């Protein structure tokens, strides 16, 4: 029965209604340490809503979430803020703090939330910027950075908090094609280093070999799940494979 450590994240029967529309209709999943889970599916399927429900940016209407086996009581503010420190979030449109330079974007939560001394926080932030290859850009403000650089800063910002899991909400879909690679390389590097991640994406090719499980979402439900080998196997017809082939065809169009 007991098989070592509990999953990093366990999501149990999440429901969410937004604007009278049922966006999530009972989504469950578990993520073990070091796993990379890919959420894929047509837009409007609930991927982004699910990710925002996981760290309660959108409070779920129903369902429970466990971090390392402990249920998160999100109505208790202190517990919620504590939980969010353990769950990094990468947004589609970066959401860097526009009034802070790259270094302060990474260090501000260390100082204000973790109450780390300023010099130490800056050192840690510098280290994280180095990790995403942007140490020399530390004095630049978001408006002075390219989209790819902004997203890398936002990854550094999440990493600085030492999260147990990182949620990535289509991290490359707001980027120009030539900037996608630099962000994906950082994400691949993270996956290789054993970071636990849930990523909604359509750029499945780059991370396929590192993915532990693909979850295909449609109409607020996970309708297919399995390893990439299983879901994308040419001999098996799955909704997921059909969707991915359709995406590939779209990309191949001149």
């Amino acid at each position: 029965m007991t098989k070592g450590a509990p999953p990093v994240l366990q999501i149990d029967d999440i429901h969410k209604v937004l604007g009278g529309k049922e966006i999530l209709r009972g989504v469950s999943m578990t993520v073990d340490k070091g796993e990379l889970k890919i959420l894929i599916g047509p837009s409007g399927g609930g991927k982004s809503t699910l990710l925002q429900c996981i760290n309660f940016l959108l409070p779920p209407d129903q369902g429970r979430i466990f971090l390392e086996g402990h249920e998160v009581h999100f109505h208790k503010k202190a517990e919620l803020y504590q939980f969010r420190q353990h769950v990094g979030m990468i947004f589609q449109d970066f959401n860097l703090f526009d009034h802070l330079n790259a270094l302060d974007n990474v260090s501000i939560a260390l100082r204000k939330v973790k109450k780390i001394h300023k010099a130490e926080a800056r050192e840690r932030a510098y280290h994280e910027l180095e990790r995403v290859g942007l140490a020399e850009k530390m004095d630049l403000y978001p408006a002075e950075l390219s989209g790819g650089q902004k997203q890398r800063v936002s990854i550094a910002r999440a990493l600085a908090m030492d999260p147990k899991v990182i949620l990535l909400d289509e991290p490359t879909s707001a980027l120009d094609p030539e900037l996608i690679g630099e962000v994906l390389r950082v994400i691949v590097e993270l996956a290789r280093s054993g970071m636990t991640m849930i990523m909604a994406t359509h750029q499945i090719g780059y991370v396929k070999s590192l993915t532990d499980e693909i979850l295909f979402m449609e109409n607020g439900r996970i309708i297919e799940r399995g390893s990439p080998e299983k879901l994308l196997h040419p001999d098996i017809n799955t909704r997921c494979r059909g969707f991915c082939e359709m995406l590939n065809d779209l990309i191949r169009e001149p």
Partner: protein
Amino acid sequence: MDAFIAIMDALPYILKGVAFTAGIVIGAMMLGLIAGIPMAVGQVYGSRPVRTVVGVYVWFFRGVPVLVLLFLVYFGVFGLIEIQLRSGYGIHINFSPFMSACLVMGMVSAAYQSQIFRGAIQALPQGQLKAASALGMSDFMAIRTIILPQALRIAIPAWSNEFSIVLKDSAVAFVLGTTEIMARTHFVASRTYQHLPLYLLAGVLYYILTWIGIKALLKLEHKVRIPGYSN
């Protein structure tokens, strides 16, 4: 020549009024700032009762003329308090016209400033608060460290506009007998009958004060500008 002499004679006396005018304006703008920011935050992020209270406040102070409010507070409210304190507790307090003017104009400006800051907060992308929350910040901390530093920058042009309005509205305080520019000019003009040059002088003084204030705020706007933003 008479006009010139009238101005030169009256200038030292009227210039002393500049300090009172500046005092009313600075007092009112600061009071409006201190009250206006939490009101704006309450109106954007607050619960329904908070939003209602702020809304009623704003509608009241936008809807009643400054002149009415000055009389209401100075003669009505403060007069009543003075009498109550004297008869009830034997405490003798006199609220000065200057204090009344600062308070009334500050309360009115708070209503307008709250709307300036509300607009600035709502102009920020929603993702800013989301990103702050996702890092584990409380709402209060996120508003203080992420939202307000950006919103206040955006608000500077509208705030300097509000400053220029309050500065010129401050002339109304003369009805209470505050010894500011307008009251002193009126006092001299009605004795020397040199209305034309003296009111021109008063106008020029208001103009110069407006110019100084707007220029200073423009400088502030440039100083706190976020690098990379074109505006």
